[in-house]
């Protein structure tokens, strides 16, 4: 029903030209459907039913507003238009328009994420607020402001022209990945994992792959999410503590998700053989982990090589840090520590201190390792990461 609601919203937004009003009308229609369908059964074409209901609600609302503000003509205009076509390619195009409007670069990234969850994933305002750890009032205000900007500043409801498409697609992928990551590796709060939010990210990525099937980057994005999310059940111990990949029970990994992710990586690589997309490369790294029967049997040489490829596209300190972790497994802790220590600007990044602590421990330098752990613990952390680092510090002292 959420998918139908989204398709109906996309079409109605185009026909009435106002996202906020369309959202209210679709919300009304969904509530109406819950009642009517429970009573009379699900209609043969639920989408057409919802679209008709939503359109009538939009017209009702417009009439009421018209009476208040003397704009009868506008409401009549809504009536005169042909009922929109709820099938096939029209819905496809409307959904794409909706995606590009919600992820428009003139909206702040936080706002794009909130709009994606509210409008593209169909979460309620209260659910979006909980997912992003802000109060419902704050979220309602943010969404209202966003809809006002879309309406009065006329953020267009259309698919960008070809020459803008690569940049705009990258922006859309970023929004989906931010949603996923906030669920996969929450940056704040009690829970390190919020699987429901990660699944919303996957839903978004699936929608994008369905809408734009030829884009290697979107395939890579979906693959990366699936291959990381496949480990969700093994990432926490029964007490809610974080389990690192080396110690995870690989029997609890989701083999179906891994198989789907691996196929997508292959397709993504075939589509962009000369210059692999960064998401495809990151997914290839995740696949190398997911396909290894044990941690010791991981193909570290392959992983280091993939990081080298990734560095040609996105050379950041965090990518270099992750590469150093793979180098530690391939070549040992000493060369890896040298790589980690030469990275600048990661002093506020807890995982940098964590990686140093791990390598210093392996090199039997416990005093420096403890110092690094204490530096990490001084930064904002989720509760499970804090517990993990505290346990390591305690183990060093013992």
């Amino acid at each position, binding site marked *: 029903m959420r998918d139908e609601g989204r398709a109906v919203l996309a079409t109605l937004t185009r026909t009435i030209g106002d996202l906020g009003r369309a959202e209210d009308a679709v919300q009304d229609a969904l509530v109406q459907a819950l009642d009517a369908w429970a009573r009379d059964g699900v209609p043969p074409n639920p989408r057409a039913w919802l679209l008709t209901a939503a359109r009538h609600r939009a017209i009702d609302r417009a009439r009421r507003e018209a009476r208040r503000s003397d704009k009868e003509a506008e409401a009549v205009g809504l009536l005169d238009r042909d009922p929109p076509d709820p099938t096939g390619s029209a819905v496809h195009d409307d959904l794409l328009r909706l995606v590009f409007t919600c992820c*428009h670069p*003139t909206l702040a990234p936080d706002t794009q994420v909130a709009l994606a969850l509210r409008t593209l994933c169909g979460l309620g305002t209260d659910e979006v607020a909980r997912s992003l750890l802000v109060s419902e009032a704050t979220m309602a205000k943010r969404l209202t402001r966003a809809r006002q900007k879309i309406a*009065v*500043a*006329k*953020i*267009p409801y259309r698919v*960008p022209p070809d020459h803008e498409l690569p940049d705009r697609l990258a922006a859309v992928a970023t929004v989906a990945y931010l949603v996923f990551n906030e669920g996969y590796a929450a940056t704040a709060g009690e829970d390190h994992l919020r699987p429901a939010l990660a699944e919303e990210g996957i839903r978004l990525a699936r929608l994008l792959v369905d809408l734009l099937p030829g884009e290697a980057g979107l395939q890579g994005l979906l693959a990366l999410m699936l291959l990381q999310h496949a480990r969700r059940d093994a990432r926490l111990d029964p007490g809610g503590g974080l389990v690192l990949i080396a110690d995870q029970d690989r029997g609890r990994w989701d083999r179906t998700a891994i198989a789907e992710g691996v196929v997508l990586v292959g397709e993504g690589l075939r589509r962009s053989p000369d210059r692999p997309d960064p998401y495809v490369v990151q997914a290839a790294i995740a696949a190398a982990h997911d396909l290894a029967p044990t941690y010791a049997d991981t193909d570290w040489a392959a992983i280091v090589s993939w990081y080298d490829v990734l560095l040609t596209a996105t050379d950041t300190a965090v990518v270099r840090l992750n590469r150093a972790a793979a180098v530690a497994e391939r070549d040992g802790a000493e060369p890896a520590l040298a790589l980690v220590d030469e990275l600048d600007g990661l002093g506020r990044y807890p995982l940098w201190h964590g990686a140093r602590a791990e390598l210093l421990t392996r090199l039997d330098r416990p005093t420096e390792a403890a110092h690094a752990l204490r530096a990490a613990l001084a930064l904002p952390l989720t509760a499970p990461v804090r517990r993990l680092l505290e346990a390591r510090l305690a183990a060093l002292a013992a």
Partner: protein
Amino acid sequence: MPQYCATIYSRDADWTSPDEAATTGEYQEFSGAAAAILRGGAALYPTATATTVRVQGGKGGDVVTTDGPYAETKEVLTGFYLLECADLDEAVAWAARIPGAWDGAVEVRPVIEFGG
């Protein structure tokens, strides 16, 4: 079609000075290219000529003036254009062609149509 006010924040310069000929030339070039969508605009004298007016105690209260702009900032309001565009994408594309956007910033905001 909606109108957008493009306010230009850039270095505090005297556009009447011959030293600024190169920049004013660029602005003239912009105005020429944008003629079809330009609905108004103005270039302003430097902030040294500005007077900020406040009425203390609300309407009818004491008029207090201060010498200088509303806010002391590195980049200052140096002018504005009124653009008529189909949507925000078009307005942003035109704003990017305003010389002030190249070394300062241009704020694009939709204009309210009263009684429309």
